[in-house]
């Protein structure tokens, strides 16, 4: 298992390199140079050239790219923001905890609400509850995030004044962003749980359990749920990765100083080195969450666990049964 984890961690490295190269290339060929924005409207061509030289963005493509990697490996930095003149890593370090807090609780919310709702909808298939939850989850997952954010803000912040309109100075500020980020994952988790449960509940081994006289409650929780968990874990893990890398829209609307907002502002300001750092961190978080998800599979399904093992464990008492003649005797 340890070997597998190590292998998977090492496999994240080429992914990150790929992400950096792609983002860097896109930025390099961007039509607007960051120097133009930094120097303002009245700048002369010499000002801009001087600025470009200062930022080091006048150098050839490969030199810049190599320099970026060299900085990471040699100094462990992601460069310095063109605009704020601060190390990108420090800026991300300041904002990431806020985004992770929101993302984690949103994903938690999706699991805590979505899974039971999905189970209930599957157990009471074709009931009124099932229909309502199906319709609701389709409507909610089809609803654009910015619209939901605005509705929540209008109703709960502006009209009811329960929560602040913007910022995360107190815990109250977190509530609406968490709900807004969590709604779509809740809907997705509910639907995935329902369909996965329905699929498993029709399996022969569930019938076997019924024929053994297992009570319905145990059938649902012990025999069905554990088998239905794989797709559910996939969705929850995906949601966790996605929401922890920050929702640009949600953070912009609620004005939350998180990773999403940083990424958004850095793109519009052509602060490419910051954008690059943000994307790199996001890619790492998502890769890491995928790894966690895959490890969770092994926890749930012994067949997947067996695949992760590099060496087969020897049978306990060393005597493999001879399937053929011995049994017939």
């Amino acid at each position, binding site marked *: 298992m340890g070997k597998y984890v190590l292998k998977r961690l090492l496999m994240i490295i080429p992914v990150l390199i790929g992400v950096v190269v792609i983002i860097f290339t896109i930025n390099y060929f961007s039509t607007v140079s960051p120097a133009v924005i930094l120097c303002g409207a009245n700048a002369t061509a010499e000002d801009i050239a001087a600025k470009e030289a200062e930022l080091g963005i006048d150098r050839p493509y490969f030199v810049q790219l190599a320099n970026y990697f060299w900085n990471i490996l040699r100094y462990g930095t992601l460069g310095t923001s063109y605009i704020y003149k601060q190390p990108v890593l420090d800026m991300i370090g300041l904002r990431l905890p806020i985004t992770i807090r929101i993302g984690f609780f949103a994903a938690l919310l999706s699991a805590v609400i979505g899974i039971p709702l999905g189970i209930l909808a599957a157990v009471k298939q074709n009931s009124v509850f099932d229909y309502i939850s199906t319709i609701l989850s389709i409507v909610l997952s089809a609803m654009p995030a910015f619209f939901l954010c605005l509705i929540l803000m209008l109703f709960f912040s502006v009209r009811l004044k329960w929560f602040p309109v913007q910022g995360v100075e107190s815990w109250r500020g977190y509530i609406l962003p968490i709900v807004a980020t969590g709604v779509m994952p809740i809907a997705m988790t509910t639907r995935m749980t329902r369909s996965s449960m329905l699929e498993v509940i029709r399996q*022969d081994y569930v019938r076997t359990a019924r024929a053994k006289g297992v009570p319905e409650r145990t059938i649902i929780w012990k*025999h069905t749920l554990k088998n239905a968990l794989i797709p559910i874990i996939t969705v929850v893990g995906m949601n966790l990765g996605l929401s922890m890398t920050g929702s640009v829209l949600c953070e912009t609307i609620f004005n939350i100083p998180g990773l999403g907002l940083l990424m958004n502002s850095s793109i519009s300001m052509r602060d490419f080195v910051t954008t690059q750092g943000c994307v790199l961190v996001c890619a790492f978080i998502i890769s890491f969450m995928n790894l966690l998800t895959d490890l969770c599979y092994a926890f749930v399904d012994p067949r997947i666990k067996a695949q992760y093992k590099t060496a087969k464990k020897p049978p306990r*008492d060393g005597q493999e049964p001879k*399937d053929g003649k011995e049994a017939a005797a």
Partner: protein
Amino acid sequence: MNGVSLSVEEGETLGLVGETGAGKTTTALGVLGLIQCPPGEYVRGEVLYKGKDLRKTPEREMRQIRGAEISMIFQDPMTALNPVMTVGEQIAEAIRLHEDCTAAEAEKKMIAMLEKVRIPAGRADDYPHQFSGGMKQRVVIAMALSCNPNLIIADEPTTALDVTIQAQVLDMIGRLRKESGTSMLLITHDLGVVAESCQKAAIMYAGQIVESGTVEDIFDRTAHPYTQGLFNSIPSLDKKLERLRPIRGQMPDPTRLPAGCEFAPRCPYADEQCVKEKPGMVELSPGHFCRCHHAGKGAPLYFPDERVNELAYDHGLPVSNPGNNILGKEAGQ
């Protein structure tokens, strides 16, 4: 399902035979009340177990009966075991549910059950995917027998298995059944299996029992054309046949059954009456029932293959009944 009436006495084995889709499994699940409703529906009828109608038994009590008094061995061992529970857990679960015992006692009994089906105790912590098909079926058998049920319903226990494993599994079921004096309803489409391990047999066609009686009734005094058809589809060791004579055609769609006898469209003896009128159950001899207009009237319906009968005649043998091949008896005895 319509007009199904079966009875299994204590310690007895009843074979339920029929083509795929005849309703054998549905009958079995119906006994245990395990048919999914909807789309399934129990219209009427009763399932009597020790004089008690299981159809009217509340679900809570049914759970005590399932697994403990009536248990089931399923057709496909590959899918009948829960892939995420160890086989030990799955067997012990049945014991814990029905017997008043501690976890340690259940564990002990589970190990004993495993050993009874010749699986070493050390494999109890393994998962179903680590077992071969034959071993999985033995686990299913251990699970079904773990609470010493009074009735086992074995639903084609060997169909999904390799031919070489089939005999072992059947032997094992038979041996364990005899040891505990359990009754059994053996569902199969293999008449050879019925001859070997059953005392009584019932032939099912399109959701109905068309012939039932003792194994001797069915094999020696075959009355229903469908039963004969089944026998004709089996190759024989001692008769030379150029080709088998399968029953032509397909079973009717259960939602659009013919107006007359269900078997009439495929029956070589069908006449006008058969097409128009549904036959009732006729008792040919005590305990031997047949659902056919022609049954018991005049000459018995013998093997329709003229050539084989001619051969038998040439050798000075009485015209034979095909069932005898399977019972291993001399023709005409």
